[in-house]
Structure formats: C-alpha cells, structure tokens
C-alpha cells in the first residue's frame, strides 16, 4: 500500500501535481524512474529553466509521463505529440518544449512526424520511452519488439525486424542523440540536461521495463528488478560497441551519447532569419 507521505518527496512536492498521486502506472513500471530522471535534470538546470518549459505527449502509457508535472502540459493524440509541439515551439520559441512519447507512439503511428521533426532540426527534446511492446492496450507487437518475441499479436513469434531509433534519427537529421536504460539514472539525467540545453532536435531514448507485458512476453521476467538487472548486464557503452562485431552486439543495448552537433542551425533560428530578410525588403 502506497502511503501518503511518499508524495512528500522533495521532487514531487516541488514539481508534481501531488493531488493526482498516486499515479496510474503498474507496480514496477519504468516510467516513475523516467519521471524522476526528468525532474532531477530540472533540479540541476534550475527554476528558471523549469518555468520556461512545457511538456507535450502522445497516447500510450508513456504519454501519461508528464501529466503529473506542474507545468503546461498537452496530452495530445496517438502519434501527434510532435506536430503539436512544433506549432507550440514556433508560436513560443523561448519555451523548452519536451515531448514524451512511447516507441509505438513515436516510431509507428507518429513515425512520419518523427523523421520530419528531425529533418527540420527544430528545437524540441524528444524523450522516447522504449519498452518494446504496446502496453496500454495489453502487450501487442511494437516496431521495437525483438524478432521472434511472443506478444498478443505475434502468438507464433514476431517475424518483423525492429527499428533502431538512434540509427533512424541519425539518418533523418537529429543533432543530439543519447540512449540509456532505466538502470542508468544518473547518465540519463545528464543526457536529458544536455538535450534540454541543446538548440536543435534532440532525442533521448530510455529503454524501460514494462513488467506487466514486455517482461512477461518478451523477456520471460515479471520482476522489475530482474528486468533492470538484464538491462545492466546487456548494456554496452557506445565506445566499447565500436570495437565489436555485429554478431557480438546481437541482443545488446548500446548506451551512451551517440551524436552532438550544436553547430547545425535550429529551425526557429532559420525562420527568424527568413522573417528578417523578408521584412527588410
């Protein structure tokens, strides 16, 4: 039983709509850890940054992540968090707009918006929660589900290859890329901080446990501690991964900071230049 005093945690008191707690996530869900990563990042970024931050999310368990934050929050449609965030960012370029999406939300139904947001290098921070299944609907195949995995819609094993978000975003033009798991709290917090400060389109992927569905179907582990242990043991830092063969990397999670290109001009800055150029005519 969750006790009321748990909501008196310093981060919860400072940043969360405590009247909405306890939140609706299953026990052992990784999203609570991800909420904490985000709030720890802002605790270090400072109050001024928090005040000029807004959150946008889509549909799915991960879409609920920012609903508990005492901030301006838009809980949009499945796949459409990024277009909302683009409209908001263009209207208010001074805001830090953080977009929290799940893997299905961002890479399947919202995949088109994701690649075009990256191509534009628009100054948004996408925090993508990858748990390898559709959890809110009860554990169906996602574009990140490993080949062979049994899910509710792949009862005979998944025959589709899965997306590598980092490679996808590299190709599309994102200018800050990092991946961690819920085991890597401090590292992820540091990457979120960097992503928020980065001017262009930044993506931080967090591999997260869904003990209820992904644990049960994909990993055959329902205890969140076992799943996080599995994350720890199967993660390889990006620098080490560079020395390994594709066979050696099979089934491993490559973690770290993959890309940081602060020199590429961000979209709202390009737009500002265009306005100045046209206005002068």
């Amino acid at each position, binding site marked *: 039983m969750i006790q009321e005093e748990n909501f008196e945690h310093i981060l919860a008191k400072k940043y969360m709509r405590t009247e*909405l707690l306890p939140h609706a996530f299953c026990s052992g869900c990784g999203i609570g850890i991800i909420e904490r990563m985000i709030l720890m990042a802002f605790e270090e970024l400072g109050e001024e940054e928090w005040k000029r931050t807004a959150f946008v999310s889509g549909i799915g368990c991960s879409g609920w992540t920012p609903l508990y934050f005492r901030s301006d929050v838009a*809980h949009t449609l499945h796949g459409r968090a990024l277009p909302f965030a*683009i*409209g908001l*960012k263009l*209207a208010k370029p001074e805001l830090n707009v953080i977009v929290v999406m799940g893997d299905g939300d961002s890479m399947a139904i919202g995949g*088109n918006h994701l690649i075009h947001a990256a191509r534009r290098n628009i100054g948004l921070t996408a925090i993508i929660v990858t748990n390898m299944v559709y959890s809110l609907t009860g554990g169906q195949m996602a574009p990140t589900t490993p080949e062979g995995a049994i899910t509710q819609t792949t009862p005979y094993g998944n025959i589709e290859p899965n997306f590598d978000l980092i490679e996808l975003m590299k190709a599309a033009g994102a200018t800050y890329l990092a991946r961690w798991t819920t085991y890597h709290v401090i590292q992820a917090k540091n990457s979120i901080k960097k992503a928020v400060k980065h001017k262009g389109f930044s993506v931080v992927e967090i591999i997260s446990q869904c003990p209820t569905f992904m644990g049960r179907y994909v990993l055959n582990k329902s205890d969140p501690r076992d799943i996080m242990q599995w994350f720890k043991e199967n993660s390889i830092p990006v620098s080490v991964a560079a020395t390994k063969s594709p066979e050696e990397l099979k089934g491993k999670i490559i973690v770290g900071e993959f890309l940081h290109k602060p020199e590429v001009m961000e979209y709202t800055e390009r737009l500002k230049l265009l306005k100045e150029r*046209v206005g002068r005519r």
Partner: protein
Amino acid sequence: MPGELRLMTGYDALVEGAITAGCRFFAGYPITPSTEIAERMSNRLPKVGGIFIQMEDELASIIAIIGASWGGLKAMTATSGPGFSLMQEGLGFAVITETPIVLVDVMRGGPSTGLVTLPSQGDVMQARWGSHGDYAIIALAPWSSQEMFDLAIKAFNLAEIYRNPVIILSDEVVAHIREPIKIPPPGEIEIVERRKPSVPPTEFIPYLPEPGEWVSPMPAFGEGYNLLVESVMHDEFGHRIGMGQPIAERKIKRIYYKIEKNVEKIAMYEERGLEDADVAIVTYGSSARTSLKAMKDARNLGIKVGMLRLITLWPFYDKLIEELSSKVKSIVVPEMNMGKIVREVERASKGHCKVFSVPKVGGVLHNPDEILSAVKLAAR
C-alpha cells in the same frame, strides 16, 4: 488600399481576410484545389510577422495549428477532400480541448481522390459529423470573393468567442473565381481577440466557465497557468477521467450546447424575393450563384420564387426553415452533391411543405435550366 474595389481571387480574399482577423500561423500540406491558400500564406505571413510551415501531411497540419493556438496565436489550415478526411482526427482534438482554430475545406469531387480539380459540395455532412463522438461545429459557406474575405474574419471571431473549430466550406468555384471585392477600412472591421483570465493562475479553473458564459478565458502556454490540455475526457481542471459519467456528460453537453443553443447568434443567411414567394430555393455556396439565375428566369416566367441562401450551414438554423416552410408551397434545394442539406431542410420543415432535392454530381455546376425545371415542378 482599404475602401477601394480590388479584383481578387477567392483564395486571395480569404488569405487577406484571415490576416486582417489576426491570423499569424498557418500550417498546411499542398492539395488541389486549396494549394493556392498555402502558397499565398507562405508569401504573406512572414511579411506581417507571422509563421508559415509546410507540414509532412494533413494529420500534422491541423495538430500544428492547435499547438500554435495554445501558444497564443490565431491559426489556420486549408485543405481539400482527402486532406479533410485526415483532419477529422485533429478536429475532434480541437473540439474536446476547446481550441480556437479555422479550417478551410475547398471542396472537390469525391469519393477518395475523386475529381481533383472539379467543384463539389460533397463534404457538408462530413463537416458536421466527420469526427467521432458527440460535438457541435460551426461551418460557413461563402459564395463570392467578397465573402471569402468577410467570412474569414467572421470565422476567426466565432472560433475565439466559442473556443471551437470553425470550418470554412468553400469549393473549387468560389476559391478560384476572380471578382471585385471591397476591403473596409481597419476601424470598420470587428475583430474579436482572445479572452484572457482575469484571475491569477492559482484561482483559474480552465474548463469552468463563469456564470452566464459558455466557455472559459484561454491563457497560452508559458504564462504560468500550468495548463493541462487533455484529449482524454476531463473534468473542469483538465484532469483526465477514465470513468465518471456525470463529469463526462456535463462536458459533452456544454461543448454541444455552446454552439447549438447559440444558433440564432451564429446563423447568417441572405433572403431574396421571399416576400411573395410560393416557391423557395434554399441553397448555399456556389450553387446559390446558379440558383440566382434560375430564380430570375422563373420570375420572368411569372413564377413567384425566392431564395434563402444559407451562409452558416452548421449549426443548422431549424427555426428559420420551419418558418419558411409554413409560408411557401414548396422548397427546392439545389446542391452539388446527391442531396445532403436537403435532409436537414426536410427535417426542419416538419412536413409543412413539399421539399424537392436538385442534386448535381460529377464535378460541374448545375445548369440554371435544371434548377428552373425543378422550380416549375415545385410551383405546380
């Protein structure tokens, strides 16, 4: 110059009207025959400090204008047929979050990719019912370049007053027509600005209108109100409710009635020659242009016929039709579809008079003679 007559296409007039109304954000995706609106906006908006963005599809376009609206800007998109179908998703999102936006549908022939370059009025029911669930909508049907200008302004005003999406149901003919229009001097144009809360953020309840009001004021993101813009059914604070029937019922009824119960304020129409009429032509948009010719021809033949041109299609003004139906012998409804608004006319006339549908499909306007024949039949 304001006050002077200018020769303008429908879409040029629409864009100038939107900019006059304060539109400073446009997101769109090219689609015939509405593309010129996006092109014109890409040219005009940067010059007035506004923002134009071409999105990757129509799904994104409508959501981007909703985001911009919550960023404090008056925002618009424009599309046609297939794009309008894609936008139904976002339309529902704007409805439940009570976001003011303006959506222009330049109707073309359907179904599907259909008759890409040809006019139609086939989307009038989709405009009313296209998104899932229960809601109400405002839709305006211009018939001239002048009205493309005037109704663009009106659409933005209504969107702000009712915090609801407003659809401009234009069609290929009205969008591409080139006519003289008169732009009034700025002081003579009524422009409604967004109502901001008068209470501090701690006292503001985003979805609880003050007594006597249908909607709350609307702060923007970044103004300290800690807004929760929620697509899931929500309470007065914006908090998601999974279940909770009384709260959901309250919300749905309010967003429905804020439009339907204000029909007398929202409804615009034009009457011609109805004083002594035995037959009334009830029509809208470019079909009204053809109907006007048919009406003149019928009058020359001695038939007492008048015309009611609906400018506001939705909410449908039942009372207006009922009153008309008890004054005339019959009503003729020409429209460029298989007969859609005629169903509303039949329903609202409650059997007081005969109602004749004059459908036209395939991508052409009616021949005035077709409407004249129907009028002759109706006058018998």
